[in-house]
Each structure stands twice: as C-alpha cells, then as structure tokens.
C-alpha cells in the first residue's frame, strides 16, 4: 500500500514571518516576552512625539508627589515626572543593551572564527586573551573600564562590549572547530575556494544559531549591567535619565517616595524578563546544548 501522503507535492517553504508566528504561538511565555520587547522598543522610539512630559522639566512645588492621574508613576525629588523619565531612560538602556551586544558579538565572532579556523599560534594568542578577559567578573571589568575612561554613553557601550567579546569568541571558536571538519568544508577547500569565502559562506552560516541564542540571552544581561553601572554612579550621569540612575536617585527617598525606585525597577524587571523569555525559547528551539550559558553578567 502506498502512503498517499508521500505522493502529495511538498508544501512551499514557509516564510520567515510565518515561522516566527508559529514559534510564538507555541511558546506563550515567548509571546509575552515578544510583546513586552515590542512595546518597550516602540515606546523608546516614539517617546519624542508622544504626549509625555519633559523628563528634565523640574517643578519643585510638585516634588515627591505620589502616583496620580497626572503623574502615573508619581514625581521625583525635583518634581519631574517619573513615568516620562523611565520611558526616556529606556531609550538609553535599550540602546546600550542592543548596541553593546551588537558590537561585542561582531568582534567576538570575528575573533572566534579566526581562532577556530586558523588554529596554531593565532588560536593560542586569541584564546589566552579570551581567558584573561573571562577571569574578570563581568561587572568589575565594566566598572574598571568606566572608572578609567570616564562616564559617557559611548564609554558605557565600549565597556559592556568588551565584557561581551570573550563570551562570543569562546563560543564561536568551539562551533567553528566542529564545522571546520565537516565534509562540505573539505569539499569547498578541495574545489579551491579561498579562505574568506569558506569562512563567510560555509562556516559562518553554520555557527549562526548558537550566536543568535547567546545574543538574545546577552541583551538582557547587558541591560542589567548598564543599569548596575549607572546605579553605582559609573554609567551615564544624571540629569540624563537611565533606568539605573533613576533607581539610584530614588534610593534616597525610599522611605517617603518609594514609587521612584520601585516603579522604575519593576519596568527593568519586566523588559529584562521579556528578553529572557524570548531568549530561553529561542535557545530551546535552536540549541539545547547551550543550557549552561546562563552565567550571564547579572552584576
């Protein structure tokens, strides 16, 4: 008896949008995470045209007012609207999180591929360097860099990128080593393709999924690291709001105006949770081996 299923024409390859939609439908937590991420990114992009109050506008008679219809998250010690500060702060926190992981992963992936593909002395040098960077606690290294270079948006991004680099180079080196030995790479080499082509067209596409997984898990880590730095007063300085420095400023008023710290902290937790939910689901879908990679820099 012939299985009729086999005779049916193959279904067309699904589009990227459909794949993502199905993936989210199967993972309610990831769906929740994706919605939170989407809202936070939209809010940070659109905040200049949304009807929020100026996050720097001081109104001293109105200081430390509890949440009300006018100020949903209350006001801080200068009478500034906390909600508006949190959203403007999210602009910076998300920017730092996404940018530093983008830069750090780009450098880390390059180092890892070179190290894994060429081996020998190059490998030894790059991996020694990676080991040394990894032996610093993530937050400590970022703190030292910020303390040395001074506080600015770019320095914070550079500091977190440097912390991110060794995580990616170690991971990509390992994946490259295993892909390098595969038959199709051997075949490409036998056909006389040059090294750059082999790396770009044969190796990189095959180490892409662990990179994607690590990146989705490192963005929330980078967001937390940025928040920790500005909480300690080493990151971006007030009056420019970031999630960390809003909490730090609110800390002094915990007794009579807890909403400043508690509300802004809750927003960090929500957004980071969103990224973590998506990251976890992506990891389970792509690469269950990465389960140990949760030692992300939570401070």
């Amino acid at each position, binding site marked *: 008896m012939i299985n009729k299923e086999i005779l049916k024409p193959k279904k067309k390859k699904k589009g990227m949008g459909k794949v993502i939609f199905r993936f989210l439908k199967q993972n309610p*937590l990831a769906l929740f995470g994706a919605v939170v991420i989407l809202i936070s990114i939209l809010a940070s992009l659109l905040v200049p045209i949304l009807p929020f109050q100026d996050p720097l506008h001081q109104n001293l008679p109105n200081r430390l007012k509890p949440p009300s219809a006018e100020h949903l998250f209350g006001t801080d010690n200068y009478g500034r609207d906390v909600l508006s500060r949190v959203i403007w702060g999210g602009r910076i926190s998300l920017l730092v999180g996404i940018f530093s992981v983008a830069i750090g992963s780009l450098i880390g992936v390059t180092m890892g591929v070179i190290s894994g593909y060429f081996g020998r002395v190059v490998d030894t040098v790059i991996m*020694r*360097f990676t*080991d*040394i*960077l990894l*032996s*610093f*606690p*993530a*937050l*400590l290294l970022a*703190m*030292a*860099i910020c*303390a*040395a*270079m*001074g506080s600015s948006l770019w320095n914070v991004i550079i500091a977190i990128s440097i912390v991110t680099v060794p995580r990616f180079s170690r991971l990509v080196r390992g994946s490259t080593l295993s892909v390098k030995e595969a038959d199709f790479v051997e075949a490409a080499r036998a056909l006389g393709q040059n090294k750059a082509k082999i790396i770009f067209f044969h190796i990189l596409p095959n180490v892409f999924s662990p990179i994607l997984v690590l990146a989705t898990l490192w963005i*929330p880590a980078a967001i*937390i690291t940025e*928040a*920790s730095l500005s*909480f*300690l*007063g*080493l990151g971006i300085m007030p009056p420019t709001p970031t999630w*960390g420095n809003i*909490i730090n400023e609110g*800390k002094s008023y*915990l*007794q009579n105006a*807890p909403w400043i*710290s*508690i509300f802004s*902290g809750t927003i*960090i*937790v929500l957004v*980071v*949770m969103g990224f*973590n*939910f998506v990251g*976890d689901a992506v990891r389970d879908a792509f690469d269950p081996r990465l*389960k*140990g990679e*949760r*030692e992300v*820099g*939570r*401070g």
Partner: protein
Amino acid sequence: MGRYLLKTIITIIPTLFGVVTIVFFLIHLTPGDPALAILGPHATADSILELRKNLGLDQPLHLQYLKFLGNLLKGDLGRSLVTEQPVLLETLRPFPYTIQLALAGVLISLLVGIPIGVISAIRRNTFLDYFMRAASISGISIPVFFLAIILLWIFSYHLGWFPIIGVGDTSSWRSLLYHLVLPAFTIGISMAVLIMRLTRSCMLEVLGQDYVRTARAKGLAENTVILVHALKNALLPIVTVVGLYMGQLLGGAILTETVFARQGVGKLLMDAIFSRDYPQVQGTVLIFASAVILVNVIVDLIYRFLDPRIKL
C-alpha cells in the same frame, strides 16, 4: 595530586600576569592626567609636577610598568592616595565583611535552591514545577541592586525588622549577624534561582540513569533513591557552577554593599573610584580578580576530589 597542582599553578600564572597587565594599562592609559584629576582644576603647575614625581608618573610608561611588576612580586601594591596606607592593607581590612556576605549568600542559595530544584525535578511538569520555573526565570530578571532595594524597602522601612545600613557593632557577633541577614538574602536569592534551575536539570538527567532504575528495582525507599543515589551525583556539576558564579557573586557583593552601605571591599572600591585614588582602585581590582581566579582553581580541585572518575 602534586603534579596536577603544579600544572594548575603553571597555567594560572600567565592568566594572573595578563590580568595584572590589563589592569595596569587600563588605569595608566586613562585620558587626562591623574595628578590633575587628583588635585583638581585649581592646582598649581608646581604641585602637579611634584605629585607626578611622587606617583612615578614622570617616567616612561614601560619603566612604570616594570617597576609596578617588581613591586608586585614583593607584595607591594603601592600606597593609597587618600589614607597613605599600603593598598594591600587597606584592601584586606574590609575583606572579612565581604567574605561573610559571600559565604552567607552562597549558603542561603544552596539551602533554598537545591531543595526547590529537587522537588521541581521529581514533580516534573506539574503545576508546582511550572510555578517554580516561572519564579526562577523572573528571579533571573531582577537586577541584584533592585532586589536589595525591595528587601530594604519591605523589611527595613515598612516592617522595621532589620537595620538599614552598616555591618553592625563589630565586637558583637549578634549584631554582625543581624546586619548580615538582608544583604545575605539579597545575594542568596539572586543565586538560588540559578542553582534551582541547575539542580533541576542535573536531577532530571541523573534520574534517567540506569543505576537509579536499579536502585528502585531492588526496592529501596524512594527517599533513599532520590537523596542518596540521585542527588549525590547531581551535586557534582552544582559544585562547579557555584565556582563559575563566583565572579558574579562578587559583582553582586559590590552592588549589595553599596545599597546597604556595608564597609566591604566593594564599598572600598567605589569610594576609591570616586576619590580618584588610582593605586587603591588598581589594587582592589587586582585582588578581586585574583581572588576569583583562585576560587575557581579551588573549586576545580574540590570537583576532582569529589569525582572519583577524574584522577588527579
């Protein structure tokens, strides 16, 4: 054992050397003149020159580096610019408070994380398991400093159960312990969520092994199977991971100490950074990083000791 130790020591020397080099150049390649930064914008040219000479900043960078390495080998990390005491001494003084905090934190995280992880694994895919897993992923998403603030807000400000700041009266262990509770729980909870996830997955792996089935087949009580046969073997990777989290733990300690104003090494580092006490910053970062490397070596040793399959 001896050979293994020797090999470990030989491999950590280049790492330590690398750490020293990175920290040195990080501090010394900073844009701007440290002497100017220390003395402020109103300093006279003479006083800046003198301070530069005192700090050895007038020499070429490579000579400064060699001198720094030479002094380091003698255990001399320089003198603090603020207290004028040796940096090593200044750093070791608050060390006990940080170690107390770290140890208490680890203890709490193990006491909370392992049992919950085990229960979650046994009751796999029940409501309890889902709840615990959701709680752990939420826990992972809470920044340590925010957790500290929440605990401080609830238990100190609202309920008034615990003191707000400081390490307490150093002459009385009761007071020390009392001041340790909230900071230790901050670190403990933030690590417990990781340990719980890890315990759960290790237990699930072990529970699927043949020897667990054998133990059940020969009629052992379920508790014995789980506690003696399964958990004992699942503990091995947990030991390693606790070691891997050491760096994170110390990072958490810096943040926790800042929130609770505990006079630990983290607070020392923050104070040094803000008072631009460069030798002290350099020394503290070095000691911190070396401590993490050493702890990792020790954990590796314990792991090898616990796992009879690995010969030393």
